[in-house]
């Protein structure tokens, strides 16, 4: 299995980080394993971590009276969680494992502290997560367009 640093270096969203920056982030990461139906992130709780899925299947969900609704699923190589970067640092959705998921958990709170002293790192992390948010927003919009309905426009 690749080291955390190697994994970060191979992840597209972090391609702009320097080796030192990658090293710094990797130092705040640790391996984590989640059993079937275990939650990586709990809606409403403090968002102090983010994850990189090594291998597994994670469903982003929200609770409705009818039960949990999955709004998106995340897979190998995907990051999970960006609320650690944005005030008030509270999770917006649940992230629940389907089957066993191996991931790397990063200490978001500590990373936030580092960023206030190292604006360069902060800027790069913002860029990285912004790119993910843009991708997710595009996908969400596509889902909203309901393209499979009978309408042309």
């Amino acid at each position, binding site marked *: 299995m690749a080291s955390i640093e190697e994994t970060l270096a191979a992840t597209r969203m972090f391609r702009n980080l320097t080796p030192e920056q990658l090293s710094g982030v990797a130092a705040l990461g640790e391996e984590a394993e989640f059993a079937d139906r275990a939650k990586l992130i709990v809606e409403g709780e403090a968002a102090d971590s983010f994850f990189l899925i090594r291998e597994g299947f994670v469903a982003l969900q929200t609770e409705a009276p009818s039960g*949990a609704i999955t709004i998106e699923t995340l*897979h190998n190589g995907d990051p999970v969680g960006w609320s650690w970067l944005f005030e008030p640092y509270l999770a917006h959705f649940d992230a629940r494992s389907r089957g066993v998921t191996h991931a790397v958990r990063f200490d978001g709170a500590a990373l936030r502290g580092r960023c206030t002293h190292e604006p360069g790192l902060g800027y790069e992390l913002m860029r990285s997560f912004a790119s993910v948010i843009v991708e997710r927003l595009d996908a969400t919009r596509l889902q909203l*367009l309901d393209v499979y309905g009978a309408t042309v426009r």
Partner: protein
Amino acid sequence: MTPRTHRVVSRRRETADTWTLALESLPGQRLPLFAPGQFGMLYAFGVGEVPISVSGASTALDPLRCTVRAVGSVSSALCATAPGDLVGLRGPYGSTWPLAEAVAGDVVIVAGGLGLAPLRPAIHHLLAHRNEYERVIVCYGGRSAAEMLFVPELEEWRGRFDLDVDVIVDVAGSDWHGKVGVVTKLVELAAFDPDNTIAMMCGPEVMLRFAALTLLTRGVAKERLYTSMERNMHCAIAQCGHCQFGPMFICREGPVQRYDVVEPWLKVQEL
């Protein structure tokens, strides 16, 4: 061209408004031979004709299958037929999926919603000639589980070791435990060699553009993406003018076209 009478052998409901009809020819006659990607014109007595996706070519064991969505008077009449009813059919028309060009390489099939129907004969061909191709990957997206086509067959395909089938829905019900998101996600996750891949896409125009972008980002060359265009056909023989898309008659220069050929025209508003 005049339709020939055919008999509806069976019909299967795929979704709330989509049915697959199985057709056979009358004694002494032969079914037209549809190559993957080609379409036919189906005639409902007194109501009219519509172009239909041939979703399964006829073989010695299987009747011809076409998948029809009930959106107008003709398609609704066709979807209301019962086994034993007679309809008119003429064809084959149009261009075909590039199955010969794809030989010795990977094949990525990206389908959205009803778009799986015209791709199904291509998948059958790939499976029937499996040794001629490298990896075969099917990425299928739909609005929800209830709006997917050919579910039993999809499940069967997923069980094969020589085929990668993955499905994803835009909207998950409480009983959906699969992937949720856009079909481009499946393309991102798929393992194929971009330098040696032909992609065949079919679905709503918006989906096509995003799927194409994802494939191009992965490194598949523009000339190796193919799509099936949809327009309304009246004559199906490039003489009525309805199916024109820029300079192309979709009934003749399509429906299957190379994506780099249609893409600039897709950008023209109200073409």
